[in-house]
């Protein structure tokens, strides 16, 4: 019976194990985790968990009973340090050797470090792991002023939670607008307005020279020379894929571990899925890498099917969500390269969608507090269907009729 070893135990790894067992895979499955404890969901860390609306047990991706009942081995607190491709085994920090017939790299990504003086001071934190979120949650109540560096999804989600707690928040962004890579100008402008409305000071086209403070972070020195005082500095300037172990094993690595349409690396016995994988997608100029639960879960399902003898190229529609305060943003498709947007609904009402087109071809739909638009868009974009700009803008046009 063939065995599957997975490096990492995040969203992608757990879904892979669950899908393999649902498909009656009977060989051993071993997940190698660098942390202790039950594998958990990350999205709530900057949302419901941090805001106190969700407790720690509810974060678990699966209960402890799942691993025993499904016979999924979980190696905790013992990171994989090397892959022996000829011997088909993975070596861990503690020196254990796990032999595999198929190896899956689901190593995720790590926070990008801030390359300025003072970045190593206590009080400068990141938000990716449960340990980081737990520490942040424990001190949140005592904070008066925080600076968030980076107006990406995680930075803005944290800013919304902090502002709601009455903390004075300053968000510093180097780009001309928040979520520059993630959303259209229209959506970005609306979200910027919302954060400012909650009292957050949002500075764009602003750099960071240094974190100031003696012994701990006390402020952030901006490119303008201003020093913004802070009890805490959250660095949220994006992530870098965890590719080291693949690189050392001489697998192809670019902006992520390079895989083909079947999610296989250049070694047919090794695949990569989730945040760490750079994969081809129709309509994209080169390999892309996505950071979303959808991408991790759907790639895991696709790979499970292949390991179960039903190979198919990965071709799922990307979708994403982000909650900022009472705002629920949902995105279907990839908007990169759009040259025209059409609004559906009135932004002033707080519920609207932005349809992003390139040459009259619909690339993506961004919905704010309009889940039905998102659901419809996911369905018709996945089916390869589209709506015209005129239909998109017409409130009487029923998106459910498109297919």
């Amino acid at each position, binding site marked *: 019976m063939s065995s599957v070893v997975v490096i990492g135990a995040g969203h992608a790894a757990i879904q892979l194990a669950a899908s393999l067992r*649902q498909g009656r895979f009977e060989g051993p499955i071993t997940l190698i985790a660098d942390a202790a404890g039950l594998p958990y969901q990350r999205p709530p860390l900057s949302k419901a968990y941090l805001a106190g609306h969700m407790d720690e047990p509810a974060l678990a991706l699966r*209960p402890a009973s799942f691993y025993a*009942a499904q016979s999924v081995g979980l190696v905790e607190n013992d990171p994989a340090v090397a892959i022996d491709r000829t011997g088909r085994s993975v070596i861990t920090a503690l020196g254990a050797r796990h032999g595999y017939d198929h190896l899956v790299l689901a190593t995720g990504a790590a926070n990008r470090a801030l390359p300025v003086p003072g970045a190593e001071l206590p009080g400068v934190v990141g938000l990716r792991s449960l340990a980081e979120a737990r520490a942040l949650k424990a001190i949140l109540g005592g904070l008066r002023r925080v600076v968030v560096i980076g107006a990406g999804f995680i930075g803005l989600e944290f800013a919304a939670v902090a502002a709601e707690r009455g903390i004075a928040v300053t968000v510093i962004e180097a780009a001309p607008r928040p979520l520059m890579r993630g959303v259209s100008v229209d959506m970005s402008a609306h979200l910027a307005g919302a954060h400012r409305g909650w009292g957050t000071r949002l500075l764009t086209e602003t750099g960071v020279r240094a974190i100031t403070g003696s012994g701990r972070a006390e402020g952030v020195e901006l490119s303008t020379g201003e020093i913004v005082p802070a009890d805490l500095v959250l660095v949220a300037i994006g992530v870098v894929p965890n590719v080291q172990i693949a690189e050392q094993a001489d697998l192809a690595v670019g902006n992520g571990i390079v895989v083909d349409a079947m999610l296989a690396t250049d070694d047919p016995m090794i695949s990569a899925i989730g945040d760490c994988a750079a994969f081809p997608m129709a309509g994209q100029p080169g390999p892309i890498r996505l950071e979303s639960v959808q991408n991790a879960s759907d790639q895991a399902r696709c790979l499970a099917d292949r390991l179960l003898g039903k190979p198919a190229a990965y071709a799922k529609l990307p979708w994403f*969500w982000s909650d900022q305060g009472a705002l629920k943003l949902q995105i279907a498709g990839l908007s990169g390269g759009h040259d025209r947007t059409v609004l559906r609904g009135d932004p002033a009402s707080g519920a609207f969608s932005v349809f992003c087109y390139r040459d009259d071809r619909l690339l993506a739909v961004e919905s704010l507090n309009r889940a*039905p638009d998102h*659901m419809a868009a996911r*369905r018709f974009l996945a089916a390869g269907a589209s709506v015209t700009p005129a239909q998109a803008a017409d409130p009487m046009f029923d998106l459910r009729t498109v297919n």
Partner: protein
Amino acid sequence: MPKVTFIEHNGTAHTVEAANGDSLMRAAVDNNVPGIDGDCGGECACATCHVYVEAAWWDKVGGRTETEETMLSFAAATKDNSRLCCQITMSDALDGIVVHTPDGQH
């Protein structure tokens, strides 16, 4: 603990325990029951936890919420007895409930 039975499209039945207060979706995912994805984690925002409730239990599970009604309109192959099972909360009154999963959730 109260029990719930999920019957797959192909007829395979899975009877699992569900803690009072947990949703049926949670019970299915925790026990790796095939046919329930629960992609949104129970926020009533994905419609990948669609089930058909057996007639004997329909009145006991309560009605659909407005959001659920909207979400269900995007699910495939809905019927009069369709529900999103992240919106059904387990209780002693539902001990023994039987629901069927559709052919697919996507």
